[in-house]
């Protein structure tokens, strides 16, 4: 049922978010006084349609958190465009952007650190609706209580302080806070990473329910493919600041084509796949940032690497409709 809704809306509506060729670098301190820069985002582009959940998968150093911070304008891009519902926002000053802020919200990885320990949940939620000037205090309070119900926390949590609540409860409150100003797009930065396995499901199921009830778009950032499998409609896989593969959930999980995606899947489903397949897809070594290198960034870890891979930058190619891969050997990598 969800597939048909997407197909109808995707052609006729402006996408909720479009990121085009985003570039972000950070200065690095080095032993020899050369001024080196680390590339966190290397021409990243992605699109989120209205009402869909996009999974952004990658490990440390992939740039997924940087992307989230840039889209939310907590840090500024060096180059590139961010288009929110048809409006370009990357060059807006903070003052002008403030009115747009409510359309983009964020749920953090660490639920305990994302709440001011000096304020009750009710006060925090109330504050989150600051930008909504069309509602008066009474309306805000009513909305607050309704939101708490919607995330399966009773209204009694409005007077609780964060230290009185568990991680799972706080993360649900964080979801309520993200929804409070009435956003169109919600970024979730590893929302279940800090939670026990036995409660991850509660948040995930809640997200699915929320999405079915509303036209909200979600960007679900995670390194845990097991969880992404349950929520995402489409998935982008990132490695060292680049998108290496993107496609629908089915394409990524059933027919992954990039060696990194395959390695990630094999490692996540450890114990559930055969040992031969694991060995074939395992990555050697660790993530290493290289400067002034133009070839494929996975070269020194890839099981399918060839000399030719270092010569030129790999480009993102569409190997089947909606399925893009950044690898010249993609067609040869079949199960």
């Amino acid at each position, binding site marked *: 049922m969800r597939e048909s809704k997407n197909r109808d809306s995707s052609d006729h509506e402006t996408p909720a978010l479009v990121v085009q060729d985003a570039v972000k670098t950070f200065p690095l301190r080095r032993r020899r006084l050369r001024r080196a820069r680390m590339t966190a985002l290397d021409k990243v582009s992605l699109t989120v349609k209205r009402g869909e959940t996009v999974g952004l998968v990658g490990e440390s150093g992939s740039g997924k958190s940087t992307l989230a911070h840039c889209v*939310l304008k*907590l840090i500024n891009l060096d180059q590139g465009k961010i288009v929110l519902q048809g409006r370009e926002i990357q060059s807006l000053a903070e003052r002008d952007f*403030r009115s747009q*802020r*409510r359309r*983009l*919200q*964020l749920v*953090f990885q*660490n639920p*305990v*650190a*994302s*709440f*001011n*320990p*000096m*304020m*009750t949940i*009710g006060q925090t939620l109330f*504050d*989150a*609706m*600051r*930008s909504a000037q069309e509602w008066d205090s*009474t309306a805000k*309070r*009513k909305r607050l*209580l309704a939101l708490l*119900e919607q995330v399966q926390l009773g*209204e*009694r949590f*409005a*007077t609780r*302080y*964060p*230290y009185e609540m568990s991680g799972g409860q706080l993360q649900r409150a*964080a979801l309520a*806070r993200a929804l*409070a*100003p009435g956003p169109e797009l919600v970024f979730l930065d590893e929302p279940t990473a800090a939670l026990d396995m036995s409660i991850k499901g509660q948040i995930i199921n809640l997200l699915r329910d929320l999405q079915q009830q509303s036209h909200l778009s979600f960007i679900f950032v995670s390194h845990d493919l097991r969880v992404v499998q349950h929520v995402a409609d489409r998935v982008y896989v990132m490695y060292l600041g680049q998108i290496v593969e993107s496609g629908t959930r089915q394409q990524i999980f059933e027919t992954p084509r990039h060696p990194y995606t395959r390695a990630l899947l094999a490692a996540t489903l450890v114990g559930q796949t055969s040992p031969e397949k694991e060995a074939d897809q395992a990555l050697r070594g660790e993530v290493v940032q290289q400067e002034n290198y133009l070839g494929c960034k996975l070269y020194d870890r890839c099981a399918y690497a060839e000399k030719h891979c270092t010569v030129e930058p790999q480009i993102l190619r569409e190997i089947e409709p909606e399925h893009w891969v950044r690898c010249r050997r993609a067609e040869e990598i079949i199960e």
Partner: protein
Amino acid sequence: MVANQLPEFSAARLFARRSLYGRMVEANGAWRVHLNLALLLVILVLGVLAPLLPLQDPVKPDPLGSLRPPSSEHLFGTDTHGMDVFARVIHAIRADFALALSSVVIGALIGAPLGALSGYLGGWFDNFTTRVTEVFQGFPQILFAMAILAAAGNTLLNVVLVVAFYNIPVYSKMVRSVVVPLREVEYVQAAKVASVPTLGIVFRYILPNALVPVFSQLPLSCAYAVQMIAGLSFLGLGVTIPTPEWGSMIQLGANQMIFGHWWPSVFPGLALFLSVWLLSNVSDLLKSLVVRRS
């Protein structure tokens, strides 16, 4: 309670905050809160009502009756000028609490928000404020105080302001160092995402969470303030000699200790000790409001 039956009532009840007093009792137990607040109240009341109490005249010298040990007539004995130590100790409450406490509190009230703003905003404001406060800290305090009092006049208000001036950089630096790491903490970023304006973030999200070291420092600052005031009064500034003040009493009586006349110094010393300890307890109580157990 069903939310949709009486929405106004239920919302109001839900959002009513427990009072400061209620929260203190909850965190520390009734005994601790009541005992400390009661003792503090007793001291303050004694200080305020001192002139009305049936005490000996604290400033009437009695050269013949000097250095009398504690007796039924003079509970704490008499000092080198024959003045009743007990009456002086009680009267000194006014000078010490008023001067020390107010100067420290003013210093903290100005210094803490300054440090928070400075730490959060960074940039030229931070640089400017840090340089200015460092200049103030560079002066030797007593000389600085003397200079100001000489120029502006030797009033008690000026004494308070001078001591407050010394405290501003202390609290400013302390709060600033706690605030800098708080800039990146998730709940501050969440407030930014929620469009809370900068001043709101500093005063409601950052400052309350940066207060822990401030509370620990307050009683210590009071003790230093008393010393500074004592030093000034010894020099003839600030509190002038016959006016009772613990610091100056301790200093004047110190010479008599070798001769075995311990009471002119020890009793004001005990009073000072008790006051600082009490202030320290009260600061712990306040801290318990601010520090949340995880």
